[in-house]
Each structure stands twice: as C-alpha cells, then as structure tokens.
C-alpha cells in the first residue's frame, strides 16, 4: 500500500481494507529502514503519528473528518509544530521547540491527517538543491548521487520514495515546483494569499507561499482543499472562498487557450527538454486545448529582480535571530554586539549569510533606489507581462527547470545555482499560482512541465494536470529506490 496515492488510500480506509494505524505503522517502518539513505527527514514523530492514527480509526465509525482523515503526511520543517523541534534546516533553530502550530499544520490536523515527521530543506528555504541544510543534503531517490532539488527537497524525496503519500512544502522562487520536477511529482504553489503563512518561518514575506507535494493532481487537490482559506492571523491571507477542487478535476478543457511563452523555449534550452514539453502540449491538444505562442518580454529580468527583492526581505526577516529570545546563542559573549554577531555567525550557514548581506546592501543608504526600487519597478513589469498574456490565454505552459536533477556538489557558484530557477521565479514575483507536473524522462531522470495560471486559478491548474494524467502515465513512473521501498520484505503490499 506504500505505493498508493492519497485518493487510493482514502478508498482503502473507506472500505476498511486497512486502518490508519496499519498505514501509519507501514510508513514509519519504511522511514526507519530507508530514510537514512535519503536524509529526507529531520524529525520523525512516531508517537504523535500513532496517536493521531488511533484517533482517526476510532472516529471513523461515526464518519470521517475529510478525505485526508487517517492519511499520513509529512511537513516541511519550515512549519511550526507545537512542542516539536522546528529547525528550518538551520543550526540557528536546531534547539527551537515551536510554541504553537502553523495554520497549515493546524488545518491538516483538523482534517484528520496524520503527521509522520518534519522534512529536510535548504536552510531557511534558501537554495535550489537542498545542499544548504545544516542537517546535510537530501539524496534524490531517482539517483542517490543527485540532488532532489530545493528548497523543499526533503518533502519531494519523501513522497517520491513512497515514505509518505503527500507532504507540505513552500515556494518562494520555485522551491515546490523544481523539486517536484526533479523527483517526478506534482507540486503546486498556490496564488499568494491562498494558504496562510501564519507559523511558516519567513524567508521573503511577499513571495513565500505554502503548497503541496504529491504523486498526482487529484492528491494535490485533496491536500490544498484542507490547507487553503482565509486566516485572520495572516494579514496577507486572501478572504476569497475556496472552491471544491476535487469536483472540477474532470471538467472538459475543450477550447482552453494555452500560452506557450517563446522566452521559455529559447535556443539556449536543451532541445530534449523542449521536446518533452512539446509532446506534453500535444497531448493537451488532443483534449481540445489550443496552443498559442505568447511573449513574456521581461522574463530575463526575473532572476535579477528576485535577487534584490528576496534577499532584502530576508535580511529584514532574519534580523529577529539575535541570540536573545530563542535560537542559537554563542558562548561567553563579551558584550551585546559580540552576542549578536557571533550568535548569527555561528547560527547561519554560508548561503543565508550571503543573502542577508546582499539584502542589507540593497537596502542600505545610497543603494536603495538603484537596487530595491528598481527591482520593484521591474517586478511590476513582470506582473504586467502576465496580465497581458492572460488577456489572450487561459493558462501558460513551459518547462519547470532547464534540465533534470544535477549531481550533488555540481553547482558551487551561487549565480549558477540562482539561474536554476529561471522559469519559476517570475511566478512568485507576480504572485500567481504555478504547478509542476511530470512530463517525461531524460536519461532515466524525470522532467516536469510548469503550468501557470491567473490569480486564484488553482482549480484550473489541477483540472488540466488531472486530465493530462488520465491520458499519460509519466506520473506513475517510479524510481528503483521507490520500488524497493514498496516491495520491501515485511512491508505490507
């Protein structure tokens, strides 16, 4: 049963072919055996998981709380979990026991989901390979010498390896979509404001958004249903009704206008990657969609604009880590200044320090207009590109990443790493929903296509992804690692 998705597990729980406790025990056992090779979990919450599973089984006779009732999931370690270590992949928070639950955690628990543990991630979600984690890199189940992508690499590896059927994740510049592409998963970053940021440790507050990492679009719909909605505790949360995502999954897309941004298929793109996405697009044409070439002329400025906006917000957000109220504190500080400087020097890793410094520089006197204001003006141009495009088309599709998962240690230069997110970053700057869906394989490694929609069009993205998954089977491809997990002697079949 480990190879089942959330919807299939829901059916198994419904018809009593297994209990939540059996399911949870099977996952916990698989995690114990296989996680050491992946390093995908920072914390495994065995006792809580079993208690939540028992409670789910007990209440089942009087009806289930939601489709997720009794379904085990994992949380990215960026979400605060009351009474439990919440590290954000950083030494700074290695000793931090969250005093409250994030709204996402609370809502999924209220929907009956069982928490298996907290997943590894790039430190403070700053990275595209999971190599900046204080807890060491995560290995991609498709090839243990390769990265799973980042920053939600732990969540991606866990779901791809069948150590959980779904996981929460967050996306500031591509941190859900790129790891989903690298691990052959469906990864959805909702519209900014769709899911509450309360209790989600801040990186860049105007860009951060929580979403889902699952094996298929239907499972994304089920998880998003439980996570989305207005939250008075997040002042940027959208007070807009949440539609029933599952009910529109099978809607016809006859006549749907899909925009193909020429900038995402430039001559620099690996032709094999372009070919994979073009094949996927022709499948959507068979479903009645119309393909229209469009232009997003400021695409090439999204990475530069992001590397002003995100570090600027990060430098402000991370100023809270001062060694005084919580988190890491250096030994024997000489004075307050020394306490701040050494606690932060010891608590933060190299990439986090680098981004704090870029942000500090961009916001400092004399540079503010040249960098920060300029980047915000370009941000508006990027948003306007999309607004113009959506007058012509209903949806935009291109590659998620310029290539498949790369080798651990292959990208040591920060700028090279930043360019990893060339197709995903504009979506965060514009606040739009984006989704990566498995679209093909290249030399044994998965590739994703990215769906981008107008504000609050998650239902449409899920609908298109679901229909695509009804006529293709890329999302069902599993790594040898995952097959081993699912057939492990002793694991229930």
């Amino acid at each position, binding site marked *: 049963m480990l190879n089942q998705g959330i919807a299939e597990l829901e059916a198994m729980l419904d018809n009593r072919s297994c209990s939540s406790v059996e399911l949870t025990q099977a996952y916990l056992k698989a995690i114990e055996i296989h996680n050491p090779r992946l390093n995908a979990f920072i914390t495994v919450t065995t006792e809580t998981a079993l208690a939540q599973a028992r409670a789910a089984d007990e209440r089942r006779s009087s009806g289930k709380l939601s489709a997720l009732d009794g379904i085990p999931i994992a949380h990215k370690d960026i979400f605060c979990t009351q009474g439990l270590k919440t590290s954000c992949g950083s030494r700074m928070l290695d000793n931090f026991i969250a005093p409250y639950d994030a709204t996402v955690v609370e809502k999924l628990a209220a929907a009956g989901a069982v928490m298996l543990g907290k997943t590894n991630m790039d430190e403070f979600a700053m990275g595209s390979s999971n190599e900046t984690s204080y807890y060491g890199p995560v290995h991609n189940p498709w090839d243990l010498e390769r990265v799973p992508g980042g920053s939600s690499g732990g969540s991606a590896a866990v779901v791809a390896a069948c150590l959980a059927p779904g996981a929460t994740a967050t996306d500031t510049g591509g941190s859900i979509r790129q790891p989903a592409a690298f691990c052959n998963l469906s990864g959805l970053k909702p519209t900014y404001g769709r899911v509450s940021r309360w209790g989600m440790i801040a990186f860049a507050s105007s860009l951060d958004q929580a979403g889902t990492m699952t094996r298929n679009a239907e499972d994304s719909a089920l998880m998003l249903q439980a996570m989305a909605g207005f939250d008075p505790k997040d002042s940027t949360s959208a007070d807009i009704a949440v539609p029933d995502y599952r009910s529109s999954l099978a809607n016809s897309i006859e006549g749907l206008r899909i925009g193909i941004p020429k900038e995402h298929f430039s001559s620099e793109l690996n032709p094999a990657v372009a070919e994979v996405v073009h094949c996927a697009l022709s499948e959507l044409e068979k479903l009645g969609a119309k393909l229209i070439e469009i232009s997003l002329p400021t695409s090439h400025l999204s990475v530069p604009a992001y590397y002003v906006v995100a570090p600027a917000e990060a430098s402000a957000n991370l100023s809270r880590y001062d060694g005084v109220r919580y988190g*890491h504190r250096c030994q024997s500080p000489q004075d307050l200044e020394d306490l701040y*400087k050494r606690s932060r020097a010891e608590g933060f890793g190299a990439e986090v320090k680098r981004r704090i410094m870029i942000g500090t520089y961009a916001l400092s006197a004399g540079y503010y207009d040249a960098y920060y204001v300029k980047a915000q003006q*370009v*941000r508006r141009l990027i*948003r306007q590109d999309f607004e113009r495009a959506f007058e012509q088309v209903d949806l935009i599709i291109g590659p998620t990443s310029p290539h498949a998962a790369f080798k651990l240690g292959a990208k040591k230069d920060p700028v090279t790493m930043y360019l990893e997110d060339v197709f995903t970053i504009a979506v965060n700057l514009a*606040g739009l929903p984006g989704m990566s869906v498995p679209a093909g394989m290249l030399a044994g490694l998965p590739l994703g296509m990215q769906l981008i929609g107008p504000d609050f069009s998650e239902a449409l993205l899920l609908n298109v992804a679901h229909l695509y998954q009804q006529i293709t089977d890329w999302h069902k491809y599993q790594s040898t690692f995952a097959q081993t997990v699912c057939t492990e002697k002793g694991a229930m079949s």
Partner: protein
Amino acid sequence: MDKSIIENIAQLARLQLTENEREEATTSIGNILSLIDQLQSIDTTGIEPLAHATSSSQRLREDLVTETDQSETLLALAPMAEEGMFLVPKVID
C-alpha cells in the same frame, strides 16, 4: 566590490565574518551584483514600484484582546532568562 564594503555590510547585518568568509563574500557578492545589474538594462521611468503582488490594502480587525499571556512558555525558549526577563550582557556600566 571590495573588502571594506563587505566589512561594512557585515557590520550592518551584525555578522561576524572570518577572513576567509570576507574573501569569499567579496567575490561571490560581486558576481551576484553583476547579475543584478542587468536590471539597469531596462528603462523604468514612471513605473510604479510593486512591493506586493496582491494590491489589497491591509485589513483592520476589532480592537480586542486575542492573545493570552504566554510569557512563561516564550521565556522558556530563551537561551538565558530570569524573573520574566531576557538576559543579555551588561549594556550600561
């Protein structure tokens, strides 16, 4: 980018850097700023800056007490606390 600017930024950000880190930051931040300088290639005269993708204004809530006293829980997270206060090295002689 030169080391004195890096030193100044590190001071503003309250980060103690080693000599190696200063060297590395001078190069890597210099490279990142070259990437960022591509922004100068486009004329943005008259473009209103966009700070937030959602343009809606901030909501106001009823002025009610919604937080309970959690000082004990929160102080328990502090590296050093005493009698309801966070402890830091002496600031004033």
